[in-house]
């Protein structure tokens, strides 16, 4: 079972897509995630599994290729980094409206604008709070290791097709670029035409004579139907929030203070916990694995267990902190600490922030 390799996060993501039996990748190069399309092009997955790889003329075109191929029942993926993801927002909101399953990775870099090619977590709002227009959500998975870059491809596709929703793998430049050991899954076969037609009757695969034609659209000019459609989407989001919220707790059992951090920040936080515990402080880590849905109930449970304060640790000026504060709802202290511009916090400065902002004198 599985194969042990040393790989970059971006490469692990690409390899996992081939092994999952994905049908296509449509992308456009942008630092720090160009390894995804380079690896796929080098691997020639069309020879291995029949998987299509295409470099599109733009991120806009790539996400619209995803829209169409996903709407035709295929497992398709794209990836980009922050400025490119901004361009993809048009397609992402259409995907939400038309309920098309797909997976895309955002290997986040610093902004705003062209910003920097260094790692960042400043696109939490974009991924979790909308990004495009309209009332919608997408499932947001936050990998904290190269292993999770690979694992979340399969999880992302499974969730995407179960709920007919986009799954965003919200990574960052550090996780995408760093090399680690990764256990890759065995190769799965791609689905056949018969399997796709049987499993996804909504997909536009060519309608059978005597059966209604399928229409994939996000448009409806009838206000009553459009309201119903929006209500239906909200019901779906509610169900996902109830069933699919994922998180990891590290040393939270006896914790009085908890760092909330995902991705690269969660890696730093683990070292901070060691440093803090060595000084006798009872610090734990809550690592959201799904950023949307956010693990609100996990924070509530920690407060009920006696946690007095939360430090939202982010490579941003303070985005996830809003969800941490909403979860605390005044019942516990919640503060933000972050570095930006491509700088990654040191475990020591995080501990200092914890002492100063949360624990106090």
């Amino acid at each position, binding site marked *: 079972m599985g194969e042990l390799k040393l790989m970059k996060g971006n490469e692990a993501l690409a390899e996992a897509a081939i092994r999952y039996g994905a*049908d296509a990748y449509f992308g456009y190069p942008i630092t720090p995630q160009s390894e995804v399309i380079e690896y796929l092009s080098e691997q020639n997955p069309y020879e291995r599994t029949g998987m299509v790889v295409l470099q599109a*003329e733009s991120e806009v075109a790539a996400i619209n*290729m995803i829209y169409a191929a996903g709407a*035709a029942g295929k497992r398709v993926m794209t990836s980009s980094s922050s400025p490119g993801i901004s361009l993809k927002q048009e397609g992402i909101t259409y995907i939400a409206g038309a309920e098309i399953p797909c997976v895309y990775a955002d290997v986040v870099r610093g902004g705003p604008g062209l910003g920097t090619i260094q790692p960042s977590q400043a696109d939490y709002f974009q991924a979790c709070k909308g990004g495009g227009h309209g009332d919608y959500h997408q499932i947001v998975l936050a990998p904290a290791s190269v292993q999770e870059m690979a694992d979340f491809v399969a999880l992302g596709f499974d969730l995407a097709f179960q709920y007919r929703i986009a799954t965003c793998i919200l990574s960052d430049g550090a996780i995408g670029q760093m090399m680690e050991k990764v256990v890759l899954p065995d190769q799965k076969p791609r689905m056949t035409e018969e399997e796709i037609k049987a499993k996804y009757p909504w997909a536009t695969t060519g309608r059978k004579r005597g059966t209604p*034609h399928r*229409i994939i659209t996000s448009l409806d000019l009838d206000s009553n139907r459009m309201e119903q459609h929006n209500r239906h989407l909200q019901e779906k989001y509610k169900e996902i929030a109830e069933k699919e919220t994922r998180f990891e707790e590290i040393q939270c059992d006896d914790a009085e203070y908890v760092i909330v951090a995902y991705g690269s920040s969660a890696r730093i936080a683990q070292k901070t916990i060691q440093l803090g515990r060595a000084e006798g402080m009872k610090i734990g880590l809550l690592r959201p694995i799904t950023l949307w849905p956010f693990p609100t109930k996990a924070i509530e449970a920690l407060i009920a267990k006696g946690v007095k304060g939360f430090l939202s640790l982010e490579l941003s000026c303070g985005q996830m902190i809003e969800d941490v504060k909403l979860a605390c709802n005044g019942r516990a202290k919640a503060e933000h600490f972050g570095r930006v511009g491509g700088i990654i916090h040191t475990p020591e400065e995080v501990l200092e922030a914890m002492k100063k902002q949360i624990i106090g004198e």
Partner: protein
Amino acid sequence: MSEITLQDIIQPENLVYEKSKLLTDKRFHYCPGCGHGTVHRIIAEVIEELGIDEETIGIAPVGCAVMAYDYFDVDFQEAAHGRAPALATGIKRVWPNKVVFTYQGDGDLAAIGTAETIHACNRGENITMIFVNNGIYGMTGGQMAPTTLEGMKTATTPYGRKPQWEDGTPNNGFPLQITKLVAQLPGTRFVTRQAVYDAAKVRNCKKAIKKAFQNQMENKNGVNFVEIVSNCNSNWKMSAVDANKWLQENMLPVYPLGDIKDNFELINK
């Protein structure tokens, strides 16, 4: 002697024409006199005659034909504005055994979707593109399109489209010859310009559209691109009859009819 009623005439033995089975009973929202209805009918007839309705996936644009998916009894996807060629690429690459076509207007294909158009054509995607050019934005109420003629009045060129000012500084730009442009690309197999304003033109147009689908069915590589010079009597602010006359007198000198490229070879005229 009693008068002959409509019911007396509508009898099976008098049948000379019927609606394609692949057009739904949904009532067209198109303005009376508009060319879209005729183009829809031709496409439906062609798909029916070729027997490819179980393999065909259509892509609707943003524009007047945004709800084309309601009128064709085949699977359909609605694209974001201008992105239809990217959608067609996405489908055709993962379902090479299906027949994929886009249906787009001039604003969709030649303004906001220019990049998608050029690159799908340049890659030589094995798809069919139907391009209805009436030189104006219809759905949004008659604004300038990339194909609007010089001097033509629209809601955003109320004094007439003026490509440049007198001293040569740029203004509204020139009518975009997008069909000529895509014909220059090595990825286009068949490029033609048609019209539907009279019976003869409808017949020619149908032949061209049929070929554009047949090429794809036969797995002949390359884009099949059919422009249809059409009217917009509502936004041209003319009667349907006058609009068709105006089309012949003004549109056709700029957008002359006929095949432009066949089997990857440009046709010299």
